[in-house]
């Protein structure tokens, strides 16, 4: 990591090193710590200043760091990303907030054509240390364009890195690691889980950014998920345990590059894999995992890799999202099918 690696605990840690925080508060503290550690870190987005963002993730930052480090930008996503590129060239480390998942598309061209390619184009002479924060996914009863899961578009784009956090500790640390990273990082935040709580130790980085993690060991089948579906998968594993089925749960954390070594290892033991994701399945990250696992674990698989995903439809009106989104029952149903194969 090329960014100054200061000791952030001193600057940013609240009184006790271990606290119970929501994901949203953990992100807020993580952003604050990154801004304190490096004056080149700036925030850009719509309504992120006085309002603190529609989800309050940047709450208080403009007040404390000023309007030049927390920019309420004009309303245009290509503008946000495109000017972030210029600021990055000038030596800044911009953290862009896209207000909702569905509004990243006006900025898609700048992401795909400039952010992803400038390092390659210049053979490394220009770096793109840009973080694009995207509150993503459904389950919040919102109107159209506010519940989407566009991460596969970015995983398909060479030159970008894509991660998603699923708990407060990861939220706190991964956002800082993403800001430290000299590559552009799409940072997907599980908005329906913003207010779930967990312990955060602000003194010790629990691991690296681009690594998957086994959250719960198990022996009968493997569940792989990321972001909001990690909670769902853990719940499913709990429920399965009551029925005597032991499920291993892996939090992908990094969606591109994929870190599938723990998955391969797991599948070689369990012989069965269910991939869980809210996004439509067609040509998606879930497809990629299935494609890789069937190749790497060809002789270990006792059933095909199954996918439990959002359907291949636009995100439906929110009264239907309970049916659209994978839930505990759909995950267990897939596990049953896998076990019965």
């Amino acid at each position, binding site marked *: 990591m090329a960014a100054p690696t200061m000791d952030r605990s001193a600057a940013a840690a609240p009184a006790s090193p271990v606290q119970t925080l929501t994901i949203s508060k953990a992100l807020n503290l993580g952003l604050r710590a990154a801004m304190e550690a490096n004056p080149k870190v700036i925030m850009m987005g719509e309504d992120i200043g006085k309002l603190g963002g529609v989800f309050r993730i940047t709450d208080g930052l403009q007040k404390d760091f000023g309007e030049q480090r927390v920019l309420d930008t004009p309303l245009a996503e290509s503008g946000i990303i495109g000017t972030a590129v210029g600021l990055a060239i000038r030596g800044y480390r911009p953290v862009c907030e896209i207000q909702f998942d569905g509004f990243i598309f006006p900025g898609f061209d700048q992401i795909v054509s400039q952010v992803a390619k400038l390092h390659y184009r210049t053979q490394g002479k220009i770096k793109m240390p840009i973080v694009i924060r995207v509150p993503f996914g459904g389950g919040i009863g919102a109107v159209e364009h506010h519940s989407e899961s566009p991460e596969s578009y970015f995983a398909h784009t060479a030159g970008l890195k894509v991660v998603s956090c699923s708990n407060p500790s990861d939220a706190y640390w991964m956002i800082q690691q993403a800001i430290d990273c000299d590559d552009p990082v799409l940072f997907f935040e599980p908005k329906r889980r913003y207010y779930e709580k967990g312990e955060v130790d602000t003194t010790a980085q629990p691991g690296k950014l681009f690594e998957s993690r086994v959250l719960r060991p198990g022996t009968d089948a493997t569940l792989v998920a990321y972001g909001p579906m990690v909670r769902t998968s853990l719940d499913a594993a709990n429920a399965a345990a009551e029925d005597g089925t032991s499920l291993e749960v892996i939090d992908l954390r990094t969606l591109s590059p994929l870190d599938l070594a723990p998955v391969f290892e797991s599948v070689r033991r369990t012989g069965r894999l269910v991939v869980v994701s809210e996004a439509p399945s067609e040509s998606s990250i879930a497809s990629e995992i299935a494609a890789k696992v069937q190749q790497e674990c060809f002789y270990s698989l006792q059933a095909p890799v199954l996918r439990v995903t959002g359907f291949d439809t636009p995100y*439906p009106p929110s009264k*239907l999202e309970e049916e659209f989104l994978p839930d505990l029952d759909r995950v267990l149903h897939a596990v049953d099918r896998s076990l019965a194969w």
Partner: protein
Amino acid sequence: MSSPEQWTHPEPDAAPAATAAKPTAEQVIAGLRATDEGGADLVQLLTPEGERVSHPDFDIDITAEELRGLYRDMVLIRRVDREANALQRKGQLGIWVPLLGQEAAQIGAGRAMRETDMAFPSYREHGIAWTRGIKPTDLLGIFRGTDMGSWDPVEKRFHPYTIVIGNQVLNAAGYAMGQKFDGKVGDDEGEATMCFFGDGATSQGDVHEGFVWAAVYDAPLVFFCQNNQWAISEPTERQSRLPLYQRARGYGFPGIRVDGNDVLATLAVTKWALDECRHGNGPILIEAFTYRMDAHTTSDDPSRYRLSDELEMWKLKDPIERVKVYLVRQQWADSEFFEGVEAEADALGEELREFCTNMPDPPAERIFSNVYAEGNPNLEAQRDEFLDYVSGFAGGEH
């Protein structure tokens, strides 16, 4: 499903926002000036005090009946807005986008349109919807999460609400090009299109491209920008140095700023602009200078970013009050009329509440329907598998 409340109150445990935003004195002054004064170019026909004034370029002959109609429109749509807002508070809607304060801009613009004209709204255009003959109940599904608007956009000549800021401006430009290609432009019988967007939207590339296209193709398109002074928490100064109507200067078509709280002026200017378009002299940009009196949406907390003084000041410019004063002063309406409108509003409110609380949830298969006009066998298989799974579930299996 997760309750709408969660959406409304993003941080359930958080204390209410401590105090109203406290800008510097300088900012207050700047802020107040910016939102209050429309400037010398503002077209006004009815002052906030209800005085009829004349304008050299835009004037209008209005009958008592017509003005009563506009008054009624505004009262009724305001009632719809307040009822829906309350329904959201009661958990009956996931979210609501209030139009409070923008009644004159929308009724004036909407009533300037002919049935053969077409409209492309953003997401706050409940008043325009009303003038297009859309039942207010047809709007509710969007905010309750049962559908994405249930009117027929072709029949009503009112496009679906567009949420991605700016998208509809290009769609409207294309439609207006189509009107021209169809030979429907050039005389008084011509057709025209209106496109609605906010002050914040003017920054989007799509809005610019809409301006370019419409100018180059001489499209019969009226760009109607409701400058309600705020894009969520951002004041217009974050989008532009100049008053927004002046943006048109760079493209070679007229831009006019009208008092968007003056239904008469808005009607007059929009009628003129539509007529220009029908005759082939489009496009035209109208900036309706108005104010968002309520929050951005029911999820928003404006006390974090703006002063209540501003609101108080704009209350004096209420779009409905000035018409009422004028109607009374002209003796164009008596208390019976006003009571009648009130009663209509009550009935409408009642209907809305009734309808809303009885709205059925859509069936699960709706998730899969109408994704394609000509079907998709893979999706149909996905649907069948899911419905099988659901019915197995219902049968007590698993």
